[in-house]
């Protein structure tokens, strides 16, 4: 536990003491701000059944920016340690592999939350300025936060896994991006000639982030996506643990 704490704070420092963190936060917030304004304008003229946050998070533009975050957050985690050789100092200190892994993972979740935080400040700010509370409701905000947390935790575990596989941060970033995109587009297979409500369609729906988010952003928290994302994250973390341990016996 002690080692976990020390490593967790070290990772947080190395994230927040670098300028890239703020560039990423600023860019992502700017992108979403633009999208937010556009969405508000669109909803002024066109009636929409969904709330503002539902429409915002349902937009493909949001996802384009969002999916790029994960390689940026996770690419260095283990790849950099391997490249610099510091991994040797790390694992010859009296610490468990699991402590190192979980500390890095937890720190990446905090970094991810910090990047998303401004987005969630848009809504209270909008309310304060316009006095218009109807554009969003608490259920939608909580559901969206839970959804983004789940999807984020899952994507971060993909990223940390990719980072443990290579000594090159760029390769780790590309692997993460490819895997994250692949998973995201799995949900769109629906649009390519698959009969609605068939077995295949149900199967694909189970993997579809878009579909999960559709319900979550309306405030409908289903246990299936919760189980889906958490269990996949656990599996990926176990794989990462195994990769890290494999250095001992691999040739």
């Amino acid at each position, binding site marked *: 536990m*002690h*080692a976990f704490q*020390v*490593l967790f704070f*070290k990772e947080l420092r*190395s994230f927040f*003491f*670098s300028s890239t963190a703020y560039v990423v936060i600023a860019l992502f917030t700017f992108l979403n701000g633009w999208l937010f304004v556009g969405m508000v304008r669109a909803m002024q003229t066109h009636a929409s059944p969904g709330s503002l946050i539902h429409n915002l998070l349902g937009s493909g533009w949001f996802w384009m920016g969002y999916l790029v975050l994960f390689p940026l957050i996770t690419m260095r985690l283990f790849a950099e340690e391997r490249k*610099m*050789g*510091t*991994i*040797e*100092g790390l*694992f*010859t*200190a*009296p*610490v*468990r592999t699991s402590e190192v892994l979980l500390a890095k993972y937890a720190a990446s979740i905090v970094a991810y939350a910090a990047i998303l935080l401004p987005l969630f400040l848009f809504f209270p700010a909008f309310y304060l300025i316009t006095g218009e509370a109807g554009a969003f409701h608490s259920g939608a905000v909580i559901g969206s936060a839970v959804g983004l947390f789940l999807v984020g935790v899952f994507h971060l575990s993909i990223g940390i896994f990719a980072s443990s596989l290579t000594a090159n941060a760029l390769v780790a970033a590309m692997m993460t991006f490819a895997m994250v995109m692949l998973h995201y587009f799995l949900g769109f297979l629906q649009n390519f000639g698959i009969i609605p409500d068939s077995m295949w369609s149900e199967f694909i729906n189970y993997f579809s982030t878009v579909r999960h988010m559709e319900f979550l952003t309306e405030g409908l928290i289903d246990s299936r996506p919760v189980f889906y994302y958490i269990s996949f994250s656990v599996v990926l973390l176990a794989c990462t643990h195994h990769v890290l341990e494999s*250095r*001992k*016996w691999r*040739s």
Partner: protein
Amino acid sequence: MIQAKSLTKRYSGRTAVDRISFEVEKGEIVGFLGPNGAGKSTTLRMLTCFLSASDGTATVAGFDIARDSLKVRQVIGYMPENVPLYPEMRVREYLCFRARLKGMRYRESISAVAEAMDTCSLQGVERKMIGTLSKGYRQRVGLADALVHKPELLILDEPTNGLDPSQIRQARDLVKELGEKHTILISTHILNEVEMTCNRVIIINQGKIKASDSPSTLIRRLHRPGQVSLEAIADSGALGKLRTIPGVSEVTSSETDDGWTRFQLTSNAECDVREPVFALATECGWRVRQLEMRRPSLEDAFVDLLTNEQSETASAD
């Protein structure tokens, strides 16, 4: 302190470390010597639990490296080859991080870091970023890292690699000083360093231990012909006269730039021919300005061991 029993590391199709067994007693400074690729780093990495052994076991301070790896790592202060450090951290920050990672509380770590920085003379640079430091300072930061949690055993993998001669001398003195408090296992290929600092040398080549003894015994065990050189102004029959000295097997001569003659005498390993040579010189009235015997060094012992090895394998083929 360390007991290794037939420790083996096999990579696919290649045995990097082949059933090596050795012991290191508490308080010893042991040099781990071998050419590049001999398996030194692999052995040290197995002892520090970074790699696991394919076969065999080792205990460090009574703890098994496979079963009690956390306890083993607690008693070891390890400085890896090439001293990997985080370039974006400051020296004191880094050492504090390492001290706490190795299980120290915040308060303990502050005094421990101050002490380690003092031992490694890092006071001037404590607030500098590691990335901006020179090689010599980085090496010292690595060493301070290794000893910050006051380990019983220090394992240093090529600590003087890439240092300049004066830094090497400083590092050597530091290692000697640390040897008073810690048991040290040090891997290197700089031989005179080992000769000066270590109580015992383990020579390893192609994954096997070739010799394990004190430097002076290793040198004594060398059966090298004695080499004596004499610089003199002598008469023309000198070469013949020198050859008649019992024990001398070969004499060559060469002219120096300033008109003196240098004689190189080769003799049997056991007999010291300096005295008869001097007696002959005085008898014949030669003017002598130098009479010297070249002593074999650890380097000779090392090269000898390795070349024997090569010729053995060559003849086996």
